């Protein structure tokens, strides 16, 4: 009996060590990636790099148009996807009955969340660039990215709305409130931190995506800032792709610098989302 127990203990120790090792390696890998990029790219960061325009066929100078382009795209994505996504989440959490139509909606959302980003690019090309004739533009790119971001926003927002206790709603109704008053005055404000976290994470992904913007907005070399939503623009992810694969003689430093800027952009959004989540947890009264 004792021998069997010792053997089982040995298996446990072995397995636990293995799992710990694997996890440690994963964490180590993540940190190494981040540190490597910071280390190699930090030297490229300067005011000229961040605020200047590319010169010498993008081999020198700055990446301002790419930074600005990504900012505009992220903003545009927010403008379209947040109201629509939030509306859909409110519908699912507060209005939708448990019937086949609602199941269809959920299946559609699951479907949207799994579609490859390059297929979104094709769709954006087909609908926004060609059919609606927006051309290669920030508008087309933002709309494409918005549809791609919808499922993330809808699912996190719905979860946040559902987390608000049902009893609050019942009280509001019993006092003579309409459904919208209940949502506006109680449910939404209480669910807001969760919703914001979801929105920020969704936008973070949109900012880092390349494939959807390949055919819808991205310009190879456009050394001036976009002036209208109908303009094409450079964007950080696409720029990184281009300079690391299409431009011969590209200085490593600049490539890493671009990767670093993109990384910082994306990670800071991640950080903000985590902070929002943590603060909400502390202040929650229920």
């Amino acid at each position, binding site marked *: 009996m004792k021998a069997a127990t010792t053997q089982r203990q040995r298996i446990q120790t072995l397995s636990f060590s293995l799992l710990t090792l694997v996890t440690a390696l994963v964490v180590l890998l993540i940190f190494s990636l981040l540190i490597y990029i910071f280390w190699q790219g930090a030297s490229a960061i300067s005011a000229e790099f961040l605020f200047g325009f590319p010169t010498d066929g993008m081999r020198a100078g700055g990446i301002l148009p790419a930074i600005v382009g990504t900012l505009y795209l992220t903003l545009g994505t927010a403008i379209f996807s947040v109201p629509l996504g939030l509306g859909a989440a409110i519908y699912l959490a507060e209005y939708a009955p448990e019937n086949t139509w609602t199941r269809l909606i959920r299946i559609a959302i699951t479907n949207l969340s799994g579609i490859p980003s390059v297929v979104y690019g094709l769709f954006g090309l087909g609908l926004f660039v060609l059919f609606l004739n927006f051309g290669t533009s920030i508008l087309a790119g933002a709309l494409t990215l918005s549809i791609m971001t919808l499922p993330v926003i809808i699912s996190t927002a719905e979860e946040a709305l559902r987390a608000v206790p049902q009893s609050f709603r019942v009280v*509001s109704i*019993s*006092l003579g409130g309409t459904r919208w008053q209940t949502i506006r*005055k109680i449910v939404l404000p209480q669910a807001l931190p969760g919703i914001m976290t979801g929105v920020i994470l969704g936008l973070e992904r949109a900012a880092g995506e390349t494939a959807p913007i390949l055919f819808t907005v991205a310009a190879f070399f456009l050394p001036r800032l976009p002036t209208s939503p109908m303009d094409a623009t450079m964007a950080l992810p696409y720029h990184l792709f281009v300079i690391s694969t299409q431009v011969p003689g590209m200085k490593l430093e600049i490539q890493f610098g671009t990767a670093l800027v993109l990384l910082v952009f994306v990670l800071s959004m991640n950080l903000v989302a985590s902070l929002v989540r943590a603060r909400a947890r502390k202040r929650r*009264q229920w």
Partner: protein
Amino acid sequence: MDKIIIEGLSVNYSDGTESLREINLRIPANQITVLFGPAGGGKSTLLRTLNRLNDLADVQHAQGRVLLDGVDIMAKQADVLGLRRKVGMVFARPVVLPFSIRRNVLFGLELAGERDPQILAQTLQESLRQAVLWDEVKDRLDDPAFALSGGQQQRLCLARSLAQHPEIILLDEPTSGLDPISTSKVESSLQQLKQDYTIVLVPHSVQQAARTADLAAFFLQGELVEVAPGEAMFTNPRDKRTRDYIEGRFG
């Protein structure tokens, strides 16, 4: 004078359970009417019909008429929002909104769009006094309501209902989670309140029913078995089932 006249009310839920069967009941104004009986009797369902809160649940079928001051509130064109302002409700577990004490009490007025600061201040104090809570919270009206104790929260909920100047107050086992002192505070405030309001109460014990009822109605499995004035009901009930329940032979 009857405030509410219930005629032939039957309510079924969508999962087939029958909750109320052909209820006929007259609820007098300015009295405490108590609906008592074992669990599943339909008392809560009846209460929730009176402010149409049942609309939120899976009600499949509701028949009959409920006349409030002569107007049928079950009719299709009935003004449900207005009804809910006339009929206030206090729930078994105190449900306090995640706001300040002040905003909690005045929330009904906020929903109705009342903005006059004088009216708001006046109503705030009046309601809290009527709920026997004013002295305990008057110095911390902007504190979060969650900071209050269970008994205080329940009185806050009562104040919240009173702030709307309803005509009827429904209470569904309002003292079930409360200690005896808070319970007696609530019961004594009800005695004060009945001068201005019509009160319908589902008690959490037969003793509470006996203490508070002006009129008592005994419900058993969806059926209204017996109605009698409070004293008569609890000293000499006529129906055998009522007697068995009151004497504790089942429950």
